[in-house]
């Protein structure tokens, strides 16, 4: 197997002292396309947040190969975007260039072309001047994918990117995910649609606070594993003692 893009060293994540992800060990290989699957409350979003560096682990370490800066792109679930803010689709997508132009760098003709290209790649040509407040949910998600394209990251984290998105948009955006995979970028996506996972994602991490199964998708998504995951997440003990592991 190729080098690790992300290495989890006995990672426990959580809020307060309650673990949302418990003692996770393992690696995500560079260039792999991995789905994270599990019931609600299984710690999937928490895990991505921690990989993105937005949540320090309670214990253990998460190692991102090459560091996070400029290499990592993260699309959170229901992005906390102020849709009423007066900026255009073009400006929103242009934010993806931050890693290249930073605080003061100019956006010249070349950058402008790359922004337009990204907008075209997600099928939003003609929407450049529209205020972001006028976009539908699916169009907004397309714009955010265009921004991801511009970030040109080698590690891309997607948290439920297709929730409440129609089939056509999902298919278009999945094409981009395939393209990233073909370009040997590492993609990790939290997903609920197991059909999509089986069709497109070669590797899967099934998690229910504890990792249930991890590896080749077909083997991980067995009926037995899925049932086990559902049972595990239901265990919540208000009087839990300190973890001895």
């Amino acid at each position, binding site marked *: 197997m190729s080098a690790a893009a992300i290495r989890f060293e006995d990672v426990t994540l959580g809020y307060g002292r309650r673990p949302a992800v418990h003692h996770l060990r393992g690696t995500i290989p560079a260039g792999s396309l991995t789905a994270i699957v599990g019931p609600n409350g299984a710690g999937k979003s928490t895990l991505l947040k921690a990989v993105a560096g*937005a949540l320090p682990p309670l214990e253990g370490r998460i190692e991102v190969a090459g560091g996070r800066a400029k290499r990592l792109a*993260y699309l959170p679930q229901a992005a*906390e975007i102020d849709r009423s*803010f*007066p*900026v255009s689709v073009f400006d929103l997508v242009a934010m993806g260039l931050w890693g290249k132009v*930073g*605080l003061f760098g100019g956006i010249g003709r070349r950058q402008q072309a790359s922004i337009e290209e990204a907008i075209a790649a997600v099928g939003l040509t003609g929407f450049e001047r529209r205020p972001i407040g006028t976009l539908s949910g699916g169009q907004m998600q397309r714009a955010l994918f265009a921004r991801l394209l511009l970030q040109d990251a080698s590690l891309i984290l997607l948290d439920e990117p297709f929730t409440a998105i129609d089939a056509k948009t999902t298919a278009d955006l999945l094409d981009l995910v395939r393209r990233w995979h073909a370009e040997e970028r590492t993609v990790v996506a939290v997903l609920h649609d197991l059909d999509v996972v089986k069709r497109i994602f070669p590797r899967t991490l099934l998690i229910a606070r504890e990792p249930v199964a991890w590896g080749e998708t077909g083997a991980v998504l067995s009926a037995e594993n899925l049932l086990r995951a559902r049972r595990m997440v239901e265990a919540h003990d208000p009087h839990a003692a300190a973890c001895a592991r």
Partner: protein
Amino acid sequence: MTLDLLSPFTEFAFMRRALVGVIAIALGGGPVGVFLMLRRMSLTGDAMAHAILPGAALGYLVAGLSLPAMTVGGLVAGVIVALLAGLVARVTALKEDASLAAFYLLSLALGVTIVSLRGSNVDLLHVLFGTVLALDDAALVLLAGIATLTLVTLALAYRPLVLDCVDPVFLRSVSGAGTPAHLIFLGLVVLNLVGGFQALGTLLAVGLMMLPAAAARFWSAEITAMIVIATGIGIVSGIAGLLLSFHAELPAGPAIILTAGGVYLVSLVVGREGGLLWLARPRKHLEA
């Protein structure tokens, strides 16, 4: 006729000084106001304006109606209240708006008390409503300096400021510039309020920030245009307000803010971007 209308500026030096002062205030206050509005901090500006009062009042207690003493005092008090309110909001269960409200009410009461300890009611009126018709050289230099510093700083911090409003999570994932940009912006707010305080007083200092910004929202859906429009409205309100106060013999500060308020009300009704008239007028929907 036009000459007659504008003659106060050609005839009286104090009117020319007031003119320069309000233009400087509008130049800095316009953009700061737009950002306050877009960051949903419109009332924060108001609260901060009251928060600078005890500092300015202490300066007054020590040195009388002295510009440097009141300016430094106001700056210190404003920064302290901003930091304390932010700290309480982060450490305790109290939200930022409640904690800010508590501190500014305390500040306002404290400030008025301090002024009354030494001053007369006239002084109190000056502190509360400003002395735009009595700006001396030092005050004008201060106002111009604040406007310059504000515009340069905003130009430099523009990207992270906008990004921090639109998508803070994204900004945090690509850069650590969000928090410093926010703190610098808060500093600019305090600075502009201290400047406005000299001319318009603690109660109205925020007027040339928020009213033009709120009015501009009804004329554009694009942030750059909004800033330009807000600044323009501020300048026009300043000039018109001064003339109104001169010809109608009204107090100058309130006349300026009333004019800005008038522009806001007109915009609210006829503004192209969601003004009431446009909302009320039934128009056939488009094909696409």
